[in-house]
């Protein structure tokens, strides 16, 4: 009897634990998701109606008008162009550099392996800092050019080490048999290693693309006064910063007349959605890859 009631208590407290835990996780789910749904609802709500407030998860007066309006704003199209360009080229170059370096570092017979590996790892622990980096860019005359978005970040130690631990997990015999067939080191990298690395490359591509898509500070610091080189995030930043002072977009001649009857709130939220959506659509499909990519280092260490 005594043991019975003990077991009963145990299962009951287990149940309580499960229920409380599920409730807490549910609350976390709502806290994470609500802001996005709220932004989406407001962006789809009639802009004058939004001023009345009280829009939560569903638009009260549904309209696509806000989206039509912002796509008529030349700054946004311009920013989108530069952002897509930097995301594509930055991701491609970053993948090439990280995979090549990772491959050479995975070769136990590579003579300069230790030097390259240490040289690379050091960059994760220190940096020259904001101002010296800025001054370097000035000396290299990269300020005011598109290249400043791409060149400084081409080599990332973190990405190299993730790919490298992946390659370390591949059977070395594959490389050796390729070598016996007379393949040189570049051919082995290109024909044998790269195809096998697809999952980890997908992870790194996501990291690189997200980094490029989301970065705004380089635009602010280096190209803020170059309208032809501003990025999507920077355009959003300008619009969001216009709180209660009319709108940053009043300068855009194509919008100036409409501003009177447009509530900036719905417009702001529509731009936020445009800036955010591409990544939110992509990441769940790559989840399997990036989770295992992130895990690689942890489990091995």
């Amino acid at each position, binding site marked *: 009897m005594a043991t019975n009631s003990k077991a009963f208590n145990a299962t009951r*407290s287990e149940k309580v*634990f499960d229920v409380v*835990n599920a409730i807490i*996780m549910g609350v*976390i*789910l709502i*806290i*994470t998701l*609500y802001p996005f749904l*709220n932004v989406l609802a407001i962006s789809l709500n009639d802009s004058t109606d939004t001023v009345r407030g009280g829009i939560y998860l569903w638009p009260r007066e549904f309209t696509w008008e806000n989206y039509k309006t912002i796509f008529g704003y030349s700054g946004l199209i311009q920013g989108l162009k530069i952002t897509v360009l930097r995301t594509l080229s930055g991701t491609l170059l970053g993948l090439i*550099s990280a995979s090549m*370096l990772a491959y*050479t570092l995975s070769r136990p017979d*590579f*003579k300069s392996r230790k030097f*390259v590996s*240490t*040289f*690379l*790892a050091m*960059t*994760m622990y*220190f*940096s*020259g800092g904001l*101002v*010296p980096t*800025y*001054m*370097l860019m*000035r000396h290299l005359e990269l300020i005011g050019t598109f290249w400043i978005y791409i060149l*400084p970040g*081409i*080599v990332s*130690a*973190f990405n190299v*080490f993730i790919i490298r631990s992946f390659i370390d997990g591949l059977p070395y015999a594959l490389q050796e048999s390729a070598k016996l067939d007379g393949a040189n*080191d*570049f051919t082995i990298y290109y024909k044998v290693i790269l195809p096998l690395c697809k999952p980890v490359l997908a992870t790194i591509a996501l990291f690189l693309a*997200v980094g490029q*898509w*989301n970065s*705004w500070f380089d635009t602010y*610091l280096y190209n803020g006064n170059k309208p032809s080189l501003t990025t999507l*995030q*920077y355009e*959003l930043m300008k619009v*969001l910063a216009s709180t209660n002072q009319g709108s940053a977009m009043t300068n855009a001649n194509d919008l100036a007349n409409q501003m009177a009857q447009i509530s900036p709130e719905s417009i702001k939220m529509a731009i*936020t959605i445009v*800036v*955010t959506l591409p*990544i939110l659509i992509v*990441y*769940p499909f790559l989840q399997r890859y990036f*989770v295992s990519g992130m*895990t690689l*280092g*942890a*489990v*091995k260490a």
Partner: protein
Amino acid sequence: METLSAENGTRNVSVTPEPPKKRKKGIWQSIVQQKYLYLMSLPFVIWLFVFNYLPIWGWTMAFQNYKPSKSFSEQKWVGFKNFVDLFQDERFYLVLRNTLAMSALGLIFGFIVPLFFAVFLNELRGNIFKRTVQTVSYLPHFVSWVVVGGIITKMLSIDGGIVNELLLSMHIINEPIQFMAQGKWFWGIVTASDIWKETGWNAIIYLAAITGIDKELYEASRVDGAGRFRQIWNITLPGIRSTISVLLIMNIGHLIGIGFEKQFQLQNSLVRDFSEVLDLYALNYGINIGRFSYGTAISMFTSVVSIILLFTANGIMKKTTKESIM
């Protein structure tokens, strides 16, 4: 996470036996032999040198009265004058206080909350619910600080912000709180935003480490009548101890170089005395007004203190838990 893979890298390297020293001719031969490996790595080494190491050379500016129009040899050297100026500036101590306060909060909560989240998510029943929570929890990580800044400002606003509306409807407050306009809220807002954005992402590593724990341990303890909290305390947490310490060292290393993106996006002129951190100080009082030498002194101070903190944390952890990152 960065360190985990780095440790991996260096550890593997140190295991590799050193090739026996050969004559010069032998070295050249091996370079020619491995020419493709050199072609695939040397360009990037040079790249790293230019973009990651050359800025260190820029530290010389901190000891000059740097004028962009002059060449290096024409610059006037002023010794430690910029540092004396820096340490005599009252604003510097205010900025240092902000940096330390926000990084300490970030360190404590940014470290504990993901750990809790991972441990309790792991205990969750129902695979679909578990996976949904996990997928959604990564979402904010993929959003830029520009967007998060906009969202947080909106949620905390006094007209129609959900936080104020909830507090009002529960009668916890009688009138909306001006969260964004009062300095005393700023540190908390930054910390909470960071937790909201990164908890799910930072939990990945903990979750992975938990997956690596032997399932039989849980079975055995269940037979012994251990409840869930007991299991968490006696199996889960000890099982991921090394992961915890490595991440802790890493976080301490980043204590002072916490970045400034969140502060930049959440700040406004009303709360500047609470929002300005070292990098923003360097930006505002160095780059934006052309005092490059002074700005460099601030950057150099930040970098040097970070590296000292990293080594100290590493040393302490090495002694106490035998875990280290280098």
